[in-house]
């Protein structure tokens, strides 16, 4: 988890990863990528069917790390492997759902901060 940045008046300023991401791509492009991933994540994992879960997990594992969502990427990788092995799918899916919720909250805060700064 990237270190948190707080402004001196106590407001949350994002994480070091977020700031680096924005600096490397520009704020407008960063907002576009974060918004795109939010939309993708909202559409994933709609069914508990293993083939569908495996495909969604593969996609999320590929993209999450690029946005600094390492725990989500790792949970997706574990689910992908569980689906492949047809073992431990339910437990891996539960763990992933927790990480999806955390990621959605973080992405919402990130987009709100980016939009406010625009």
């Amino acid at each position: 988890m990237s270190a948190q940045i707080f402004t001196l008046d106590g407001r949350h300023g994002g994480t070091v990863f977020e700031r680096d991401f924005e600096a490397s791509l520009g704020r407008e492009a960063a907002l576009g990528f974060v918004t795109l991933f939010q939309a993708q994540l909202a559409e994933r994992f709609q069914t508990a069917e293993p083939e569908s879960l495996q495909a969604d997990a593969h996609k999320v594992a590929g993209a999450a790390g690029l946005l600094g969502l390492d725990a989500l990427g790792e949970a997706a990788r574990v689910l992908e492997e569980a689906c492949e092995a047809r073992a431990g799918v339910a437990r891996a899916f539960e763990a992933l759902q927790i990480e999806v919720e955390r990621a959605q909250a973080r992405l919402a805060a990130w987009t709100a901060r980016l939009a406010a700064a625009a």
Partner: protein
Amino acid sequence: MSGKAPILVADDDPLVRELILTRLRLAGFDVHGARDGREAVERARALRPQAVVLDINMPELDGFGVLAALQELRLTPATPVLVLTARHAAEDVRKAIKLGAKDFLAKPFTQEQLMARVGRLLRTPIAPPPPRPQAPQPETVEI
């Protein structure tokens, strides 16, 4: 990097594809994207890229099919190919290398890991893009 052949990035996930393209573009490379394997082969045939970043799991034609086509086109081994795979997919890696891939990167990966691998592929370190103008920030404390 002007005057050099472009880099082709083939991934069906628009976020992954566009993020890689953007980072490479900011590093000064001429870049082109492909949304599936068939488009990747067509673009490789037309562009004769200096390097290819290739996802394995793609619709229409998967990464292995693309690698086979690149061999038929005699683009590999001269054109280095970095394949993006699922982690622990050792069999996929072996198959990709056999089909002419030069290197692989397992998902999930970070931007920095990806840029380091692409730099190694091109034998050219890819520097981080120059700082971009940002709106003034309030004073911050890192915790």
